[in-house]
């Protein structure tokens, strides 16, 4: 079954002809060539594919493209200002060395922004709990947690570290 899907991606209206089974991650990567959204697993566990759907973090590998019809999607490409000024969460990942190979990073930054939005004043423990659906094979998470904490709750970041 072929379906026309129109949705807003990073503020711009986009359309594509997809199969019913096409996943949102496939629509973004294969049809719209927005390859910043990564796919790291087949089991909805790694979080590399996290984007915002109407402002909330979701795993784009586990929603049909057609289910995003008429809705608004933000991907990692849409986070910075048009002039290149980084989003505070991107800036924090740079500052706190929240990445090594970068494969998990788009999902981590999108999830980090969602965590900070929902939990102002978050503790380190809460940030770690909220990151349970995002897997990083490189960093050991310390820099990622500090980056997210520095946005959600700047006072909680240990100054002696990094």
């Amino acid at each position: 079954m072929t379906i026309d899907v129109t949705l807003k991606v990073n503020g711009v209206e986009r359309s594509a002809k997809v199969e019913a089974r096409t996943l949102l991650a496939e629509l973004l990567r294969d049809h719209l060539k927005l390859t910043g959204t990564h796919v790291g697993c087949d089991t909805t566990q790694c979080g590399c594919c996290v984007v915002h759907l109407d402002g909330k973090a979701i795993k784009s590998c586990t929603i049909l493209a057609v289910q995003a019809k008429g809705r608004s999607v933000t991907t990692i490409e849409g986070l910075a200002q048009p002039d290149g000024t980084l989003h505070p969460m991107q800036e924090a990942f740079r500052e706190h060395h929240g990445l090594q190979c970068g494969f998990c990073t788009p999902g981590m930054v999108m999830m980090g922004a969602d965590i900070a939005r929902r939990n102002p004043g978050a503790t380190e423990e809460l940030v770690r709990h909220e990151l349970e659906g995002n897997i990083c094979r490189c960093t050991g998470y310390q820099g990622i947690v500090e980056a997210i904490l520095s946005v959600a709750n700047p006072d909680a970041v240990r100054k002696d570290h990094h």
Partner: protein
Amino acid sequence: MRDFDYHLATDVQSAIEALRNSEEGKIVAGGMTLLPTLKQRLAAPSDLIDLGGIDTLRGIAIEGKDVVIRAMTIHADVGASDVVKKAIPALAVLAGGIGDPAVRHRGTIGGSIANSDPAADYPGGVMGLGATIVTDRRTIAGDDFFLGLFETALEPDELITSVRFPIPDQAHYIKFKHPASGYAVVGVMVSRTGGKVRVGVTGAGPCAFRVTPFETALEKNFSPDAIAAIAVDADGLNTDVNFSAEYRAHIVGVLARRCVAALMD
């Protein structure tokens, strides 16, 4: 994933009709269980009927002495709900501990209960709180709902529309999480209403169940000591590469005692 025909239902009745008219149709709610299953080709439905467009299936309200949660309400909304936090805080804790934030932004209470995954959290809450499942055609007592591994009392074309949780005097939920998946190795919900006690368990058996010997003992003497000497029968409980049935039986007792202790504080 095999392709299928997609239908966005606008109301419950049209969803049921689409299901009946399809060769081998499936309902999709949050898709957090169904879509991974399709991706792994463990199922290949001819049609997917999406409940996501039915606004009347979303929302949380107090009705009489119950908290009523409509079927398409996502875990994140139950976890963050002021109504649930005030009336049954243990249920907000349960919902807020399911999966991860992205899963909680899509997964629904109706999907979780309809699925009867042995390791899912909500079924333990249904048993421990004595909830009632409301469908398009009848109400089903939670005690009669879960029949076995991924098996419920639902007819093939029957939809859950809401779940009614009676408000207890007190309740507490503890899950012993699988360290990798986050699902419940064992989860226990203990509630107290008047003189009545309920002990609901998930994760340990093929489906959620109650531990009536614990309930009887706790109704006489509500303290961890009252159930310390009562063994849970490991016969028929789940065994996998990580945890044996005997281990799970033991953890049921440990978590039940911790719940009781937490409620005595």
